[in-house]
């Protein structure tokens, strides 16, 4: 990242999320500058997905605030956050099963559009996203007939169709073969730009190391390390959290 610090795109302040007596996130604060490739790691159950559910709006948080481009979005419904530029993929893919791949994207293009665009133009955008994702030949195939890696790509494509400024990828590589992991990783790398900030949740360490400008490690709902990938990997608490003591 450049030396002068730009205003953060996303600012999370003292975020806490409880499920009954269980504290899933405990006083988490982090700032993500625009254009950063941000890796989020942590053992199973450490609160990674909970954190992005709080960012994308699937969960309400109490207490704590989420600021996106200097706007407090803590109380906004998920679809309004999507329209402001926060998009996500799901750990377990959630396609619209009754639709084709093209229609899946059209939902996002129809509903998340910031301004009014003609149908023809939306179709063009849809095809160009599918081409970029390598799914052009699958446009008219039912979402139920996709392979696992294609489903992951379609989830990312659908997220891209909302014109995000922040793209959150929740374990988009889980369960894929190593060549497929590289394929999806290259895709994510190609999507990242100054205009699109990416938060990537991943268990595959090589992928996280290669992808991230900065990595944050959660354990039991708390941040135990944050810094460059090599710093975080060298951190003793991170190693303990992953290997157990």
């Amino acid at each position, binding site marked *: 990242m450049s030396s002068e610090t730009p205003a953060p795109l996303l600012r999370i302040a003292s975020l806490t999320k409880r499920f009954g007596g269980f504290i899933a996130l405990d006083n988490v604060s982090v700032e993500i500058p625009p254009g950063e490739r941000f890796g989020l790691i942590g053992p199973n159950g450490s609160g990674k997905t909970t954190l992005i559910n709080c960012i*994308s*709006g*699937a969960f309400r948080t109490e207490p704590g605030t989420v600021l996106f481009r200097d706007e407090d979005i803590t109380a906004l*419904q*998920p*679809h309004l956050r*999507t*329209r402001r530029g926060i*998009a*996500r993929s*799901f750990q377990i893919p*959630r*396609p*619209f*099963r*009754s*639709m084709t791949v093209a*229609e899946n994207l*059209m*939902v*996002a293009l*129809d*509903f*998340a*559009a910031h301004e009014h665009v003609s149908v023809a133009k939306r179709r063009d955008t849809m095809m160009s996203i599918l081409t970029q994702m390598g799914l052009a030949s699958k446009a008219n195939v039912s979402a139920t007939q996709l392979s696992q890696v294609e489903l992951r790509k379609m989830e990312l494509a*659908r*997220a891209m*169709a*909302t014109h995000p400024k922040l793209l959150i990828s929740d374990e988009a590589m889980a369960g894929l073969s190593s060549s497929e992991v590289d394929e999806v990783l290259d895709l994510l790398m190609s999507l990242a730009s100054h205009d699109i900030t990416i938060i990537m949740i991943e268990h595959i360490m090589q992928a996280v190391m290669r992808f991230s400008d900065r990595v944050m490690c959660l354990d039991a709902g708390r941040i135990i390390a944050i810094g460059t990938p090599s710093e975080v990997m060298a951190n003793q608490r991170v190693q303990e959290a992953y290997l157990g003591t």
Partner: protein
Amino acid sequence: MKRNGIAFWIGAALFLAAALLMTKVVSNQYPFFAGYVILQFIALAVAWSILGGYAGYVNFGTSAFFGVGVYSSVFLVKAFGAPLPVQILTAAAIGALMGFALGLLTLRMQGIFFSIATIALTIIIETAVTNWRYVGGAAGIQIQRPPVSALFDNYVQMLFFVQAVLVVLAVAISRYIQNSWIGRGLQALKDDELAAECSGVPTLRLKLLACVISGALLCAVGAPSAMYLQFANPESAFNLNYSVSTLAMSLIGGTAHWSGPIIGAILLGTTQQLLTVTISSEVNVLVLGVMLVLFVVGAPEGIIGLIRRIFRNRNEGRES
């Protein structure tokens, strides 16, 4: 798209013309009595499937909406002697409000919980009407038909035509919804509500809209029923059979396309009328149940789904 639209409206106009012609040439009154009931069920099934089919929220409260439609007419006739169009429009407005209230209270619940809440609604409203003396209470109330307007020979023929107009209206609305952004949003949230939200679909607002439109139509369809029967009592107006029949017709026809509920309602409605005349009105319910079970097991997507599957198989066969 445009050509489809023209074909649809020509079809609708022909249908209405045929209904009108029928009132001129057929002198036997029975076809109108039976036809009215079939048309009523077509309109109910189409209206139901806007929420139950497109959005996938199974509403067991059809009888609540239908009964409120009946009783809003009863009240308007008794209090003001209101004419039929006023009865229908008022019922639609009340139904829209009821849909809105039901939606606000229950649409945050998903699946079976929503359905149970809609059954509770039926029971609550029926109980309230049963205890409302002004509209006859539990004993029911007789209603005098006003003289028929010049265009028709008798009142039942007019009601038959009015119900045909309601069918066209319901189908036009349902078709519009399916082809518009509302339909795509509902289809998305039916598939996966969270994914829809995260793609920018305002799920709660769309569900409320579906609930309001569906509710308004269900109530409007119920409104002329008071005049049709010249009598209303809570037990028949809020009869759970309306809920079950409507649901069965929509599901058997298939809810993936606006024409599904029409096919289902014609098929089941006609069968019911035939059975009522030839055997007994009780056998109706039995046949309905058996058919529903057969379809849920054999063709869960209804007749529309069955037709689509046959076409797809034939196309694939041709390609290979």
